[in-house]
């Protein structure tokens, strides 16, 4: 799937903060500091982080290298949104998911904030 191209099934939607052309990548999750450090070691090129933390510092070491972020909480003024906007990192906040997304899933976010798998 190329960035912004809708393919598969829509499984959710959210508020587009940046990435108005859409973005695609493989899902990664990080629920703990150890998960973040592990992702830092592996590298996060091509990865889209799915998170419920609107905090920027929780993922500080990997944030600049991600392909995109999907956050299920927060809004325009959340710290994650602020930094993503500044870095030009594609970011979706307040995402609502109709189905579970697993690490390793390939997803696309379209320009209107629709989430596809």
């Amino acid at each position, binding site marked *: 799937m190329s960035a912004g191209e809708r393919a598969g099934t829509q499984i959710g939607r959210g508020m587009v903060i940046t990435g*108005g052309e859409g973005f695609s990548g493989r899902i990664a999750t990080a629920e703990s500091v150890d998960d973040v450090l592990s992702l830092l070691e592996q590298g996060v090129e091509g990865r889209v982080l799915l998170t419920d933390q609107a905090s920027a*510092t929780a993922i500080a070491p990997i944030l600049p290298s991600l392909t995109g972020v999907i956050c299920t909480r927060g809004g325009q003024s959340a*710290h994650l949104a602020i930094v993503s906007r*500044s870095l030009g990192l594609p970011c979706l906040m307040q995402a609502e998911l109709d189905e579970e997304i697993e690490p390793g899933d390939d997803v696309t976010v379209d320009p209107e904030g629709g989430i596809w798998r």
Partner: protein
Amino acid sequence: MALTSGALTGPEIAREYADAILYTVRREKREAMTSPLYDLPGRSALGFEVIRATAPDLLRGLARRTTPEEIGLAMREPLMRPYLLQPFILMEGYFVGREQDRIRAELEGRDWDPEADAPDADLVATWYGRICAAYRTDDHVFPGKEVKDQPVLEQDRVAEIAVACAAPAGDEIERSRQVFGTLELYALTLHGEQRDGICDHGPYDLGGGGLLVMHEINDLANDYLPWSEPDVRLPVDAVGVARVHEPVGTEFDMFGTMNYTEPSVETREHCFWIREGAQIRSATLDELEEVAAAARPATAKLFKSVAGWDERFRTAYGGPLFANHLLPFVRLAGATDLESPFAEAVDVATEAAMAWIRDTTGPVWRHFSTARDGNEFFRPFAGS
């Protein structure tokens, strides 16, 4: 009606502030903010109590040397610290700390008198109002529901900055974006997930349709926070970018930051600035990229350092974190003799509050979510 400067009383300022902060925190859903690295509600509750316990004596010490107006006027410089967030935290800390004290009295079944601390409440509120009014170049006091701007530079300073701006060349927009995104992430990590050091002000009308806004990041060489070891401090104190746009919608908040109200904004011209100590100077983007290059490993080091904190410090760090907002007033006033006593008072207040803060954090956060108006958010006082 928006508060304007003039014959303001402490109770009036506190009331307007309560309404404005309630509006701001509800919009941002602050009560929902969490982090795996920090006990955010606990550290904030602790920080408020430390400010409540230490600010009145500190202000009395400052009053022997300076006035709020002198402080506010001295803040009217680019890349300055203190900026709007520091007086905001002084006010928030004292008055939320005061509410915490009321909630704690309720939990312990004892009486609480809203007039018992009226002299201190009046002192803090009037200092806040007078600093903010002197800081702005118009007759408003602070942004909120009705006031959406934050102009602090004199016109001649604006003109000096505007003349230095030029059309972005090549990939400068993207490079500038990376610099400031990197430094914002550093600032958030250094300040334990608090939006400290990220300062916006303006907009400044240049006439002929141009609008200038300043975006700054300060406190980059912090020497007070216990976790800001020398190897994570950056080589300059602050950096900034002036951006000139065609007329564009902007909205400034009480924290000293800004959002554009339009989804896509073009930068017509820009220029860059650095502060080193008392000196502010024009800078190149290459120089700012060097600062950002130093920030990346520093951010990673700070993250790893925080990851090693014990459970207690994930709350207790709130003491020095909030005190870090009051220290710039001391330094601006040249009151170096107040620094050590203040730092000691912060340590004492932190240790004392850690004994009970977890009992009140939950009720305080519920109060944030459920207070219906300013009078309920901060219990009023009659004042002097």
